[in-house]
């Protein structure tokens, strides 16, 4: 097998992986970096992010505001020391992106502009029209070309980490164009493989978002944290799940039920006003908005039609010219995919799975418990999202913690050396044999697409916007069953060049592991918090028993072992999560209390 010797290997070339690669290159140009991605970097799913990236910018804003929005938004399941670091370093990273050429939208005076976003008290979301993720990704990719120490392995599919002597010492990848295996030796490995939204059916994620890195780290004993928290985005295209960015509401869009009524006022988010107001109504947090949809549907107030049950996202009052300028991509999506002209007709929308809040357990410096292994981006859980991520915090996370991961991995790599190259190569051979075993199996009977569809359907019923013990139990059983059937998978394509069938089979294995963690973690959390909402006697948040992180450990063929870890609380004691007028009141009370307590 061909061997490449790197100092730092990075799996994943989305926003997080690219930012980490640049950080390693800048910290020491002598370090050899291997940047591995199963697609060309600019195809990574960061490309799809529309709305923007949060950083305290305006004079009337403060780090405390951003901190409070994030921690409250996460229903107090955030690591507060990490959030403090995050909000403090957000702005300089935005400026860094600007220096690298990111076409941020501007104000007339030439400074970067900010827009409001759901759950954020003050406008602090930097944006590049409605293609923020696209521009950030291309800017990072193109900037990375400047650094000769970054060696890219484009269209290389990572099949495993190599753990030797109790630490990570490389990865094995398939060169997709030839089907050949490659061992990439490295003293430190950063996993930046993105989320796992593809575990579900209707979702906003790309086909490549299959939880690969999560599954790989998990199989090597690193726990996955808080995986029961999956974010539903309230405004997606029915059936395809494609996203209509939150910026639609930030710019002033309304959500209407079948009576043309702004129903969010019935769910503690009012009162309604004509102009968008931060943390009110349509600018409430995503979990609340998705839950409100569910209730409307129960009450028979959604619109039934060719697209199933939907509500309307009404942008008409903003006018065509404004929409074309501020939300050009949304305009195009609605027109081309649905035949709807948003300047004249409201857009039918439904909630869809959007973001994986949990991930590979990492400390505030992105290190996992396994020496040499770091994780960053959506695959990671450094602890800033808690039970519900605020829109526009994750793009910022990519660059703030991408830099941290790069710096930390570089430090680690410089202090270590490869311990036992012979043993590493032997392991790589074993990994290769396992991966080939999937395609060479003679007696397989199960179809990839069938298992994948059954998984996604079951996850949707068990781990939807609202959850019940009984259906979650059914989903646990279903995923267990699918994992058994996966062993009898049949791969029709036996070739080597661009054998995408084989890769889909391996991805399905990753998906099933992650799905199992999600549903078992959810089943065991007997409370309602953030995006995890139960209707079977656990409707309330239970801080006594569950102000805790779920930690799911790999357990071979069996169900994951579920343990719990403490939540780091520094300055914000768990309070009521309230929005709209109730939120203003709660804020005032908290202030009063704070003053009384000194």
């Amino acid at each position: 097998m061909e061997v490449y010797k790197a100092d730092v290997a990075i799996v994943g070339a989305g926003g997080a992986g690219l930012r980490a690669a640049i950080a390693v290159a800048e910290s020491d140009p002598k370090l050899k970096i291997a940047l591995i991605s199963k697609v060309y970097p600019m195809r990574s799913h960061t490309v799809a992010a529309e709305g923007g990236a949060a950083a305290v910018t305006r004079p009337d804003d403060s780090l405390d505001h951003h901190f409070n929005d994030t921690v409250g938004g996460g229903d107090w399941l955030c690591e507060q020391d990490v959030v403090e670091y995050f909000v403090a370093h957000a702005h300089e990273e935005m400026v860094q992106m600007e220096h690298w050429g990111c076409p941020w939208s501007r104000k007339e005076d030439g400074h970067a502009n900010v827009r409001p976003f759901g759950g954020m008290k003050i406008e602090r979301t930097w944006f590049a029209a409605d293609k923020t993720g696209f521009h950030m990704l291309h800017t990072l990719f193109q900037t990375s070309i400047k650094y000769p120490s970054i060696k890219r392995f484009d269209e290389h599919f990572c099949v495993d980490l190599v753990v030797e002597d109790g630490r990570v010492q490389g990865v094995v990848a398939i060169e997709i164009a030839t089907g050949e295996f490659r061992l990439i030796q490295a003293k430190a490995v950063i996993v930046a493989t993105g989320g796992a939204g593809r575990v579900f059916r209707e979702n906003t994620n790309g086909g490549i978002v299959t939880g690969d890195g999560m599954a790989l780290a998990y199989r090597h004993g690193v726990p996955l944290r808080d995986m029961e928290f999956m974010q539903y985005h309230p405004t997606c295209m029915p059936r395809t799940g494609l996203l209509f960015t939150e910026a639609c509401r930030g710019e002033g869009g309304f959500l209407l039920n079948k009576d043309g009524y702004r129903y969010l006022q019935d769910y503690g988010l009012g009162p309604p006003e004509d102009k968008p107001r931060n943390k009110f109504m349509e600018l409430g947090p995503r979990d609340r908005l998705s839950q409100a949809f569910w209730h409307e549907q129960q009450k028979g107030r959604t619109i039934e039609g060719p697209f199933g049950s939907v509500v309307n996202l009404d942008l008409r009052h903003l006018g065509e010219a404004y929409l074309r300028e501020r939300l050009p991509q949304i305009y195009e999506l609605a027109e081309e995919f649905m035949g709807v002209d948003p300047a004249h007709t409201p857009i039918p929308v439904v909630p869809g799975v959007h973001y994986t809040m949990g991930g590979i357990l990492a400390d505030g410096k992105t290190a996992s418990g396994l020496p040499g292994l770091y994780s960053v981006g959506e695959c990671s859980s450094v602890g800033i999202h808690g039970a519900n991520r605020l829109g526009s915090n994750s793009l910022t996370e990519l660059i703030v913690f991408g830099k941290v991961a790069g710096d930390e991995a570089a430090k680690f790599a410089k202090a270590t050396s490869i311990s036992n190259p012979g043993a590493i190569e032997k392991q790589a051979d074993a990994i290769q044999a396992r991966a080939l075993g999937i395609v060479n199996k003679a007696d397989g009977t199960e179809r990839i697409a069938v298992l994948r569809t059954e998984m996604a359907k079951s996850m949707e019923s068990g781990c939807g916007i609202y959850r019940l013990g009984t259906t979650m139990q059914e989903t646990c059983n279903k995923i267990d069953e699918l994992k058994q059937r996966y062993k009898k998978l049949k791969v029709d394509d036996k070739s080597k060049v661009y054998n995408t069938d084989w890769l889909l089979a391996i991805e399905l294995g990753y998906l099933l592991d992650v799905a199992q963690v999600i549903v078992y973690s959810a089943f065991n959390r007997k409370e309602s918090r953030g995006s995890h909402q139960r209707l079977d006697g656990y409707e309330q948040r239970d801080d006594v028993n569950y102000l805790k992180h779920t930690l799911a450990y790999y357990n071979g063929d069996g169900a994951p072992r579920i343990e719990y870890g403490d939540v780091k609380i520094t300055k914000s004691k768990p309070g009521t999560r309230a929005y709209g007028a109730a939120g203003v009141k709660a804020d005032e009370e908290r202030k009063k209390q704070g003053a009384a307590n000194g």
Partner: protein
Amino acid sequence: MSNRRPYVRSMDGWWKRDAYFVSYMAREVTSVFVAAYAVVLLFGLVRLGQGEAAFNGWLQYLKTPWMLVFHVIVLAVFCYHTWSWFKIMPKTMPIMFVGGKRVQPGTITGTGLAAAVVACLALLFIVGGVS
């Protein structure tokens, strides 16, 4: 050893593949006519240099039926050439703003065509006035 064997498709007859290519080729072919007509005019210039009789002979020749047919064809071809040239013109101009608004390609093409028509009319008028 690599199993890759990228397959390169032939470009034979590429310009027939797409209507867009056909119209592009038509634009290229019309430039031949433009050149040809320039030769005709050049010839007239040479004749003028050879004296009035020679020039009148050339003028007579232009009035033969074949040359009239040729002129009709050339006129049509020129119209197409002019149109296709102004159609591509916006592509050759940097992004422009007038009164804070982006100048649209259609405006550039339209302005160009209008200018061409005005110039032709003016020329006809002048020539008509002289003779």
